[in-house]
C-alpha cells in the first residue's frame, strides 16, 4: 500500500484509538489541540530540514506529490497519527493510575 493510503488509514486508526479503543476523547479537548498545534509547528520546522536537505527521499509513485515546507503532505497525516496515538496512550495510562507518582517528589 502506498504511503498515501497508509497515512490515511493511520489517521483513521488514531481517531478510532482515541474515540473508541482507549476512549480518551482527546480530539474534543482544548489541551490536545493546543499541544498538537505546537507540535505541528515544530514538525514543519524539523521535518522541513529532514525533507529539505534532504535526509529522506520519497519514491514519487508512493506519494501524491503535494508538499508543505518541503515535506510530503502524507507526513502531516503520519505525524498526526503518531502524536494522537502517543497522547491517547499517555492519558489512558494516567487514568489507570500508571506512574501516578514521579520518582522525585517535589
Amino acid at each position, binding site marked *: 500500500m502506498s504511503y498515501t493510503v497508509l497515512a490515511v488509514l493511520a489517521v483513521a486508526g488514531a481517531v478510532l484509538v482515541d474515540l473508541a479503543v482507549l476512549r480518551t*476523547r482527546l480530539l474534543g479537548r482544548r489541551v490536545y489541540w493546543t499541544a498538537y498545534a505546537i507540535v505541528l509547528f515544530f514538525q514543519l520546522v524539523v521535518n522541513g530540514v529532514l525533507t529539505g536537505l534532504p535526509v529522506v527521499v520519497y519514491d514519487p509513485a508512493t506519494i501524491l506529490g503535494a508538499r508543505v515546507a518541503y515535506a510530503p503532505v502524507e507526513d502531516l497525516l503520519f505525524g498526526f497519527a503518531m*502524536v494522537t496515538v502517543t497522547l491517547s*496512550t*499517555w492519558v489512558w*495510562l494516567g487514568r489507570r493510575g500508571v506512574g501516578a507518582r514521579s520518582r522525585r517528589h517535589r
Partner: protein
Amino acid sequence: MRHLTYLGLLAGCLAGTAPLEIWLGTRVYTRTRRWLLAVLPTVVVFAGWDLYAVGRHQWSYRREWLSGVVLPGGLPLEEALFFVVVPTCAILAFEAVRAVRGWPAGDEPDPAPAEPDPGEPGEPDGAR
C-alpha cells in the same frame, strides 16, 4: 560533522523541550514508567511502518547526514530514535499546555465515577 545532522536535530528537540520538564514541572521523564509505556506502542507501530516502507523502497535515507549505524531491516538508528524523541516531545508539549492552562485532559483523579467527561471544566457532582 554532516553525519551528525540527523542526530543533532533529535538532540535539539530534546534540549529544546528540557526546560519544560525542568522548570514547568511537566513530570514526564520523572514518571518514567508511564512515559516509556506511552511511547512503546508508537515505537512499535510506526517503526514497523517505517521498516515496511524502507523495504518497499517507498522512501530512503541519504547517508551523508547519518551516523551510519543501521538497525536490522535497514532502519537508520536515527529513525528509531525519532520514534522515541518525537512522541516524548509531544507528551512534554501536552503536559506543558496543561501546566500553563490547567485544562482537563481526562486523567485527573475523579473521586466519584461520573459520566464521560465532555472536556469542559465543571463539577459533575455539583457543590464541592
